[in-house]
């Protein structure tokens, strides 16, 4: 960072009001050239909103934005882009039915005599992605790749566009360690080139790894800006939450926890080309963690269990009785719930209210003619929103207006509302703040105590270890190991994942 250099972008006294709700209340913020500035805060603190104001997606209700010292008003993100500010928003905003290459260069395709040069674009796309260690078919539709790949494409696109400032709103939420490392390399290079970088995340360790300064928001207010070398993680957390967080890793003794009878059992379940047949029995009051690299078949396994992709061999039984699960509706009828990995695409009904989003699975389970009346809906939504501490101005607002982390909680609430007997969580803590993160872990533990069987897919080894009674490891679309007892430790898991010398990080096509 260039000490004392003039900020490249600066916000002064920003106010943003949504209806009655003050999402931002007099916030100051700045980034200097050559600086990585982390923006932290709980879900709903106003981070994304601040970013959207800085990049012209929203207009402030008060305060001003300065670019290199001069007041500016970006009419929209494109305008900001033209001024050298590239942004990766929290919700990937690309076109899933266009090719990867087209997405990378959309709007600024290299042309010759006005004709788009396909070959040139594709070659450049390949080079660009190679810089992130991604070797994929750039001619394929973006939507056919996993969230992680899409995220990298979005980052690569923004980096290409940013001449002065790069804004990354939770870019690492769906990346694995390798990809994060690659991304940090790129960030390091850009920083050296003198770009100002704004970085939003809920991973504190990442903040300490690459950021120079940190600004913390709470409930739309500025709590403070600190130089990271002068503070500790505990300080930061205290500033975010306004209190100390009891780091509750309740993991000790989990493995020995009492286990009930078998709740659900999958026998030689498999699907050609997706997942090799596997068998797994989950007991009442048991959490089974799923570990593995991206593309190892973790999500595919979950989709098979939930009937999203019907299995072509094997059988599923619930409480000892064989059930037929060929589609999610049947899975829900059997009492299964599934929080999918891609919240925006597969989870959230953006235009529907928070209330409707919470009761929708229960209503689907009840069928067309047993409608929950409005009062019942309000009560159910209210109960679960309270239980999971969902922060929304009210439950009638469209869920798309909630912060990312709160949307995630809404989906969890949706499944708790059906009183499930088996719940699959695919990356449940992605994009969730430290406070809520601990809360989700607590919720998982609580559900276990209530006798639920859970399958949790997570890239966070520490986290998986914290709440799992057993861990299954996936590799190359095959279940390769089942760990329990003392084996539930990050080192053992890593060894199991890496056991195959041929293992390398590949794209997760068709996830």
């Amino acid at each position: 960072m260039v000490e004392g250099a003039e900020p490249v972008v600066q916000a002064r006294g920003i106010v943003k009001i949504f209806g009655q709700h003050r999402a931002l209340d007099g916030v100051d913020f700045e980034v200097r050239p050559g600086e990585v500035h982390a923006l932290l805060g709980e879900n709903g603190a106003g981070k994304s909103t601040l970013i959207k104001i800085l990049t012209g997606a929203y207009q402030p209700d008060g305060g001003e934005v300065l670019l290199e010292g001069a007041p500016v008003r970006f009419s929209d993100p494109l305008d900001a882009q033209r001024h050298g500010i590239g942004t990766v928003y929290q919700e990937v905003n690309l076109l899933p039915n266009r090719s990867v290459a087209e997405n990378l260069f959309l709007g600024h395709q290299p042309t010759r005599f006005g004709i788009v040069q396909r070959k040139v674009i594709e070659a450049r796309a390949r080079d660009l992605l190679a810089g992130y260690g991604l070797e994929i078919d750039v001619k394929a539709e973006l939507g056919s790749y996993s969230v992680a790949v899409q995220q990298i494409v979005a980052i690569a696109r923004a980096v290409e566009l940013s001449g002065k400032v790069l804004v990354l709103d939770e870019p690492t939420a769906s990346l694995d360690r390798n990809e994060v490392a690659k991304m940090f390399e790129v960030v390091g290079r850009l920083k050296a080139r003198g770009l100002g970088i704004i970085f939003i995340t809920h991973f504190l360790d990442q903040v300490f790894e690459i950021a120079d300064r940190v600004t913390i928001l709470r409930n739309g207010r500025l709590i403070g800006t600190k130089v990271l070398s002068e503070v500790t993680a505990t300080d930061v957390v205290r500033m975010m939450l306004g209190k100390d967080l009891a780091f509750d890793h309740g993991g000790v003794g989990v493995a020995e926890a009492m286990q009930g009878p078998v709740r659900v059992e999958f026998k030689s379940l498999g699907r050609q080309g997706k997942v090799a047949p596997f068998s797994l029995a989950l007991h009442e009051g048991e959490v089974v963690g799923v570990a593995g690299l991206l593309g190892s078949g973790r999500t595919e396994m979950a989709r098979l269990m939930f009937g999203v992709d019907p299995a072509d061999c094997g059988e599923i039984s619930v409480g000892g009785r064989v059930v037929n699960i060929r589609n999610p509706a049947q899975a829900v009828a059997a009492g299964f719930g599934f929080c999918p990995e891609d919240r925006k695409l597969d989870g959230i009904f953006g235009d529907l209210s928070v209330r409707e989003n919470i009761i929708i699975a229960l209503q689907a389970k009840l069928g067309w003619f047993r409608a929950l009346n409005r009062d019942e809906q309000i009560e159910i939504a209210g109960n679960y929103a309270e239980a999971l501490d969902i922060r929304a101005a009210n439950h009638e607002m469209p869920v798309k207006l909630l912060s990312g982390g709160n949307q995630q909680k809404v989906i969890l609430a949706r499944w708790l509302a059906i009183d499930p007997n088996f719940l699959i969580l695919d990356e449940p803590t992605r994009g969730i703040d430290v406070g809520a993160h601990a809360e989700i872990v607590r919720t998982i533990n609580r559900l276990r105590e209530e006798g639920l069987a859970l399958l949790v897919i997570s890239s966070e080894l520490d986290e998986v270890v914290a709440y799992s009674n057993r861990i299954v490891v996936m590799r190359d679309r095959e279940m390769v190991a089942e760990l329990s007892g003392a084996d539930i430790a990050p080192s053992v898991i890593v060894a199991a994942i890496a056991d195959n010398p041929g293992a390398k990080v590949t794209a997760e096509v068709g996830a």
Partner: protein
Amino acid sequence: MRRIDWRGALLRPQFMALAAVLGINWLLFPGFFDITLQDGRLFGSVIDVLNRGAPVAILAIGMTAVIATKGVDLSVGAVMAIAGAVAAVLVTGGSSAIVAVGAALLVGLLCGLWNGILVTYLEIQPIIATLVLMVAGRGLAQLVTEGSIVTFSDPVLIFIGTGSLFGMPMPIVIAAVLAIGATLIVRKTALGLLIEAVGVNRSAARFSGISSGLLLVVVYTFAGFCAATSGLIVAGDIRGADANNAGLWLELDAILAVVIGGTSLLGGRFSIPMSVVGALIIQAMNTGILISGFSPEFNLVVKSGVIILILVLQAPMTSQWLRKRMSEGKAQ
């Protein structure tokens, strides 16, 4: 239950537009609001608006549900022609009116089912899937009528198009019954919410355990039923099945009615009563043009002008702007 905000509802742009169009009609023709009772049947221009608006209103009821699922049904006009043709050919061939009406409605249901299957199980885009029947359907209707207008004198069929119940023309009665019935069904059962969910995000709907396939089939089938009902009314009205012209381009009016009613073509939130209001706006405009005495060359220009105006008034940008102006006004 939620209390309904009547004042807020009546201030919606659709009601204002309807009032404006009716007001202009009244200025053009002072007798516009006169209603008399003649031969036990209400008679007047306002009744004409309702009566002539009924076929499109009925189409719009089915179309609303389809559009709410992020689909569209281009075939309804052709299905009207088929239904009318089937009923007319059956009664002229000696079948009883009950059989003819039943067969026409059944054919409508089958047409809708066909669309639903193409959209759901063959995963053809709705606009293409229903285009098939839009083009082929009229040909089918012509096959049924052998290219001519099949005139009939069956009193029951004629009653459907021109009869009256308690002084109200039958088309109005049928449209009202369907609109109220459909609204109650979607709002009292979970269908309304599930349709909206499918329209907002079909993938999320699937993940939430909604059988979106079955739902879509039901919705398209219902649209086919509405189209057949509308086809019976139109045939009964002219006492004949005109395969070439019955329902021609009415699918576009129906889509327009739904859009004017505020349901987005992108699916999601929908309102059947507002779509019916949309249909009435369109018909009030048509009737106004008829009685205005303008030369017919202006019909389309006037119509498109008014529609653009309504849609602009309804656009989110306009309402934001208005709100801003109003709050600025207050602040000063």
